[in-house]
């Protein structure tokens, strides 16, 4: 454990910035490059970095696989819910401008944020799950 002290210290410093950057990419998808998928990949990568630096055992204590199982389906659910909400508000499936908000621009923006957050959650949870399940056997 102790021979990884440099890797662990650097990871501890870097991981918050990587995660903040992922959230920036998620929030900035409307204006610049990026979006839910890329943000999910970056956020998943930050958790993978944690596992690589601190080992699978301490990662298992910190990240419960049940939580990620729940998040995997929660993302798709959020996406579909936004679509259904648009239908309830009187528009077509995923027609964001029909959401009952003051301006159409705001409604559209909020709807797109909703689905981007859904994509983000699913992508993060699935990537972390894939890594946890495939790299399971070698613990240190």
């Amino acid at each position, binding site marked *: 454990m102790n021979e990884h002290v440099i890797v662990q210290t650097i990871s501890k410093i870097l991981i918050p910035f990587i995660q903040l950057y992922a959230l920036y990419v998620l929030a900035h998808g409307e204006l610049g490059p990026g979006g839910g998928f890329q943000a999910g990949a970056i956020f998943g990568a930050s958790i993978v970095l944690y596992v690589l630096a601190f080992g699978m055992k301490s990662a298992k204590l910190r990240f419960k696989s049940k939580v990620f199982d729940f998040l995997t389906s929660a993302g798709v659910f959020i996406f579909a819910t936004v679509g259904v909400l648009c239908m309830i508000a009187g528009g077509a499936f995923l027609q964001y401008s029909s959401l009952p908000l003051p301006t159409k621009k705001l409604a559209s923006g909020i709807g797109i944020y909703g689905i981007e957050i859904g994509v983000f959650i699913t992508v993060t949870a*699935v990537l972390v799950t894939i890594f946890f399940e495939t790299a399971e056997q070698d613990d240190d």
Partner: protein
Amino acid sequence: MVDIIEIIYLFILIVCSVAAVRMKDLLSSTVVLGAYSLVMAIIWMDLNAVDVAFTEASVGAGITTVLIIAALSRTTRGEYVPGIEERYKTRKARRLKNGALFIVTLCTFGVLVYGTMDMPNFGDPDAPARHHVADRYIEKSHEEVYVENFVTAILASYRGYDTLGETSVIFTAGVALMMLLRRSKS
């Protein structure tokens, strides 16, 4: 017009792919594929496809490499290399197979080169692919979707069903993996 730097990028891609196939150590192959994705991201950047470049860099060069390495940790690192006797025994069959593969590859290469003759020039603004639906997206997406970045407008609104399907595919992959790998443990 193709710049000299683009030719260098494409040449690096070919070198990387040949190296990834020829290497016996699968871990090195994986790392070379990561480098391939990074150069590919630079090429997308060069073509002004910023969103694609971003995805290529984060998914292709980052996550995929890590996941392949994780998969390698479950299997073996080295590729199977036959001993000298076995290679001597199977040399005729191997020569026949390599010859056949060479001819097939050459034919495919010829067909592909023939196919590129009808294609518009690199970066041609009048290419048909740039005027099918792209004009509408560029001109109208701001009024129709109210979003500044029209790549996001296409992904989230015009092609919203596709994105939902894409997310479902990722979800299905995750669930399938849980079912396959978790059951064997208990």
